[in-house]
């Protein structure tokens, strides 16, 4: 980029809000899993929608690639610029105001750079719940959550990010501002454009603000950590729990013994909630709109029945919020607990819920046929049919050599996913990681339509180039 253009970009946000030195830029190029490298010579931190609009207009005029970044916790390389160094990183963190809270309509209007946790807290302050919740919530931003259509642990009863949005404000690549900050539940006036930007991973425009839904806070909530024999038992328990508790079943997370071993070994403050080991575990949460007692009695009835039926072998029930936090901490640190165990080949897949047990049997066989000492750590949102099908290297193996095996392991796992009519990217998106693979397996008409939409919205091709498509 020539100096003249750089100065023009910097002038929009002011020198204080531009990063030009490599040491200041470095944090924006560091990525959660150290999987991708990228270069950039300019990071811009806009303060408002107008500045974003001016930046994008200038970018389109000069064909400068723009890479949006929220909390940069995305797991598919969507927030990384390429190695050319041409791209400008647009970091949204300064746009972090709560614009409005409407307790009658149960909505909150937030700017894209609001940290997810601060949105949850703003809702909590007015006695409401914002149910989007994931392990990265202390750093990811609502703009990033919507752009990647995040799922997380609340998806079971409240839906994924997409289901929580009523309206959006978006800056298009040309600099035009789409004001669709709609707070209406019912609005059938023409095409629903917001859904194009949700899950677009920054390829169609910049989300600058959103109106999202709030919910009544549960009056009672109770968490249990259960020991089970097999994923099939977990599926049986899930169905029984949903039949019994309905909407009150607010979380159902499956974890393997290996994951509990990893977390208790590597993560501070984690201990095994049960006194004897079990092959599989489920973290189950029941919420009640009525009372603490109601939640408790739902849970206890359910679990008593399931222990008698044999699907549940043992369990611990949290008797305080601290204990419930302990259980969640174990679940949420399962990702990071894999790092000290060496290389891990990761898959973020979904299959129809009923197919989870047979998928897992097939996948285990396929993986162990390739590498008999691989250690499978498959965990996740069983109730959504979504598993993080991760495979840690054999103990003592060479990390790089093992990671290189993803060339055979991933096709084997994804092949089974497709056989079961599943998805190779359930939550995390496509980014650069799965772009080529998606191109091979997606319905050709759908792909073509996506390309036409992209071309139409972004004629200069500046928005997060090379991502998704």
């Amino acid at each position, binding site marked *: 980029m020539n100096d003249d253009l750089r100065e023009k970009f910097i002038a929009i946000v002011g020198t204080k809000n531009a990063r030009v030195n490599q040491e200041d830029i470095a944090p924006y190029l560091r990525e959660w899993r150290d999987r991708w490298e990228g270069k950039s010579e300019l990071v811009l931190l806009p303060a408002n929608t107008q500045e974003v609009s001016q930046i994008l207009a200038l970018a389109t005029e000069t064909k400068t690639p723009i890479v949006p970044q929220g909390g940069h916790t995305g797991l598919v390389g969507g927030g990384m610029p390429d190695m050319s160094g041409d791209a400008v990183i647009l970091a949204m963190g300064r746009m972090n105001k709560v614009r409005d809270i409407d307790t009658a309509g149960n909505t909150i209007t937030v700017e894209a750079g609001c940290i997810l946790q601060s949105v949850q807290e703003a809702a909590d302050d007015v006695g409401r719940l914002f149910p989007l919740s994931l392990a990265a919530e202390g750093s990811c931003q609502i703009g990033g959550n919507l752009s990647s259509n995040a799922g997380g642990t609340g998806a079971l009863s409240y839906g994924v990010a997409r289901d929580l949005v009523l309206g959006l404000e978006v800056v298009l690549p040309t600099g035009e501002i789409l004001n669709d900050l709609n707070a209406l539940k019912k609005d059938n006036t023409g095409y629903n454009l917001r859904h194009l930007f949700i899950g677009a991973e920054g390829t169609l425009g910049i989300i600058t603000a959103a109106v999202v839904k709030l919910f009544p806070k549960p009056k009672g909530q109770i968490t249990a950590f259960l020991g089970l024999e097999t994923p099939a038992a977990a599926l049986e328990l899930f169905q029984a729990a949903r039949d019994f508790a309905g909407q009150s079943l607010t979380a159902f997370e499956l974890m393997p013994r290996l994951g509990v071993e990893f977390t208790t070994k590597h993560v501070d403050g984690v201990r095994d909630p049960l006194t004897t080991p079990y092959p599989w575990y489920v973290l189950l949460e029941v919420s009640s709109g009525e009372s603490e007692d109601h939640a408790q009695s739902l849970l206890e009835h359910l679990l008593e029945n399931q222990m008698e039926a044999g699907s549940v072998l043992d369990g*611990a029930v949290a008797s305080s919020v601290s204990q419930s936090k302990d259980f969640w901490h174990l679940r949420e640190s399962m990702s990071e607990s894999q790092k000290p165990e060496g290389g891990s080949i990761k898959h973020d897949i979904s299959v129809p819920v009923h197919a989870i047990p047979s998928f897992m049997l097939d996948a285990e066989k396929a993986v162990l046929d390739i590498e008999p000492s691989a250690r499978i750590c498959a965990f996740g949102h069983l109730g959504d049919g979504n598993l993080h099908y991760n495979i840690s290297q054999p103990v003592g193996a060479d990390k790089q050599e093992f990671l290189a095996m993803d060339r055979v392991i991933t096709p084997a796992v994804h092949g089974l996913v497709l056989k079961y009519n599943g998805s190779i990217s359930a939550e995390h998106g496509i980014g650069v990681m799965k772009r080529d693979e998606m191109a091979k397996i997606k319905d050709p008409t759908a792909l073509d339509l996506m390309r036409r939409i992209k071309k139409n919205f972004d004629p200069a091709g500046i928005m997060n180039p090379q991502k998704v498509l």
Partner: protein
Amino acid sequence: MKVLVPVKRVVDYNVKIRVKSDDSGVELANVKMSMNPFDEISVEQAIRMKEAGQVEEIVVVSVGPQQSQETLRTALAMGADRAILVKHDDVVEPLAVAKILKGVVEEENPGLVILGKQAIDDDSNQTGQMLAALLGWSQGTFASEIEISGDTAKVKREVDGGLQNIEIKMPAIITTDLRLNEPRYASLPNIMKAKKKPLDEKSVGDYGVDTAPRLTVVKTEEPEGRKAGVIVGSVEELVSKLKNEAGVL
């Protein structure tokens, strides 16, 4: 030996406390309540002593409203053997609680009473000491280690300057501090078993204690919130602010 462990139902440690709109106290309606964390530690201690063969029976007792039953059930699910609920709906101050507990001790004849050093709702830190005085028993407060042998107890106490080791004569009152142990989770089979364990209901009248409060709460206020920070432009500005505005230099 029999051990008595008093437990209190309090606002959960993680709940954000809100003051009632008329400043008369803390909002308790629809608020998550749990066992006082120090009491969980006391229950755990008693269970460990039972597992080590030093204790035959653990009796838990709570003075409070009907819902305190839940707290007692939690203690039973952790491993206590029997529970007593001394039902009382209004506020009971530490001295009244100590007098009620004295009555329970006289009925039950435990060799040891383990209490939390304080309850996290009123932070009084008085009941254990008052009970020791009323009974004329020895006391080891703020325990982070307990070792019983014969008719003496060695207690490591967490005091301001560090740790203090004392030896006291049994029967005794011990109050627990945070580092003593990490309480176990209640397991599902034990929760089910706990439903069948005996839970007796008593009233304050059974112990002839006058619970009329001796203190009057004038007003309940929230602590002053933290003021927003400012980013200073230079070291000079910082020094000047510390001198002229904060008055600390």
